[in-house]
């Protein structure tokens, strides 16, 4: 593998060039290899789908696996930039651009993390960043004020799972069969939903 550009900007330009169709072999083949041979590569392309959708339509129109990614991103951005006066509307145009900017940053950091050889071993943060999972520790300074100020409709605290609660959750999910949507789909949902082995 030939030497890669080492700065975020250079990497971004390379990816941008790839997306533009400006790359020729062997750079083209190499760049495509990076993007296609790994799970991170796949996620990267998904991120670009979302970006394209957001820029074109004002919202993500490709509601497949990317939705979860986008939701995580949205949650994280909300956590990181939550001034008291920020309007809550998720379709706020400014928020939209902030989201795009955040996504771009994430994409660049992800690319850097995954393309710089030895990064993952050295810093151990590679997989986290590459998956687009915000690397802010839960309960850290960024999330603490948010958790403390539980406004109505705010993000509820994430669930602390223990064996006892897991057992009750499983017991509850078994009875999703009592409702219409949860009938067949609910059975599937509970059978699919990650549970603890007894």
């Amino acid at each position, binding site marked *: 593998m030939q030497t890669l550009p080492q700065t975020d900007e250079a990497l971004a330009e390379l990816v941008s060039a790839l997306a533009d169709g400006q790359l020729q072999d062997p750079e083209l083949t190499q760049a495509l290899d990076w993007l296609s041979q790994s799970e991170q590569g796949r996620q990267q392309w998904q991120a670009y789908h979302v*970006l394209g959708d957001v820029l074109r339509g004002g919202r993500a129109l490709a509601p497949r696996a990317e939705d979860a990614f986008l939701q995580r991103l949205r949650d994280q951005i909300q956590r990181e930039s939550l001034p008291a006066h920020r309007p*809550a509307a998720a379709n706020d145009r400014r928020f939209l651009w902030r989201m795009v900017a955040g996504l*771009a940053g994430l994409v660049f950091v992800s690319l850097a993390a995954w393309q710089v050889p030895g990064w993952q071993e050295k810093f151990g943060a590679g997989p986290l960043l590459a998956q687009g999972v915000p690397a802010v520790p839960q309960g850290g300074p960024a999330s603490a004020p948010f958790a403390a100020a539980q406004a109505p*409709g705010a993000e509820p605290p994430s669930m602390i799972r223990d064996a*006892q609660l897991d057992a009750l*959750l499983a017991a509850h999910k078994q009875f999703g069969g*009592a409702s219409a*949507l949860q009938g067949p789909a609910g059975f599937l949902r509970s059978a699919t939903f990650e549970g603890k082995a007894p």
Partner: protein
Amino acid sequence: MRQMLRQMLRLFGGILLSATVLTQAHGGPSVAPPPSLAPERTLHEWLVRMHEAARRRTYTGTFVVSAGNSISSARIWHVCDGDLQMERVEALTGPPRSTFRRNDQLLTLYPDSRLAVAERRESFGQFPNLLHPGGTALGQLYGIRFAGSERVAGLEADVVQLRPNDALRFAYQIWTEKKTGMVLKLQTIDARGRVLEQAAFSELQLDAPVSMTKLAQMMGNTEGYQVERTDLVKTSAADQGWGMKSAVPGFQAVSCYLRPTAVLADARPESTLQWIFSDGLATVSLFIEAFEPRRHGQPMAQALGATHTLTRRIGDWWLTAVGEVPPHTLAAFAQALQRK
């Protein structure tokens, strides 16, 4: 802001193009037809159609559930012959496990621990109105709106929105296959329009060749497994000394069980009461057990995807309320629950 916009546009101009090309290569998002083309069905008709399709069709597919930060998936085989339904669900994430269902009989195999759990689920697959004779009609609790068409798992789907008429329940957006009514995707949405949880087929083959004989053989083959039966004891809340001061609007008690200790993760001296309520779409379970200071800590409210939980001490008892409802609905249940 303007500078950032310019930078963004320059940087992502190329991506835009490529995303467009890629989207087109995948068929692209479908364009919703004008509302005049909306199939005219009532809420009840939509639900019956979805319900019947999932029961009566034979299919295989991959099902993905995304809740909170976790994504789970499973492979499913479903076959129907007259009144007999058989299903096999192979979890692709988490601990390896296979679940087999023959009507209301369930068998879950955990190959790692060589454990097989056999159970019977009463009222499985019954339509909620059958469970709610004389109850509040679903149509009074939720409004339905046709929201166009989209493609899911390669199939054309009608998109319908179920919106609650009060704040006690979540909204749903459902993608149902145009010809059969099969639910392809389901989103649970809160009052602010956020998707709390979504479940969808990423791939689905309708009318696939699935052998009932083969599934029955697999379900019958528990050799090498320790088979545990988790028979629930049916009871009534009144018999157990519990009642509701006032009903939570739209929710009706559906069933009540005593769960034996073996079912639950840790051994405990007495069983747990599970009192189940449903509004026809959402389900709430109230788990009641004797209060033990050692195990039961502070009252808490938590969420995992659309599933919320609330714990609270009620005298000598400990309540854990679980449901696909907003937290204040669980609080209403906790308020209304009383020891008789």
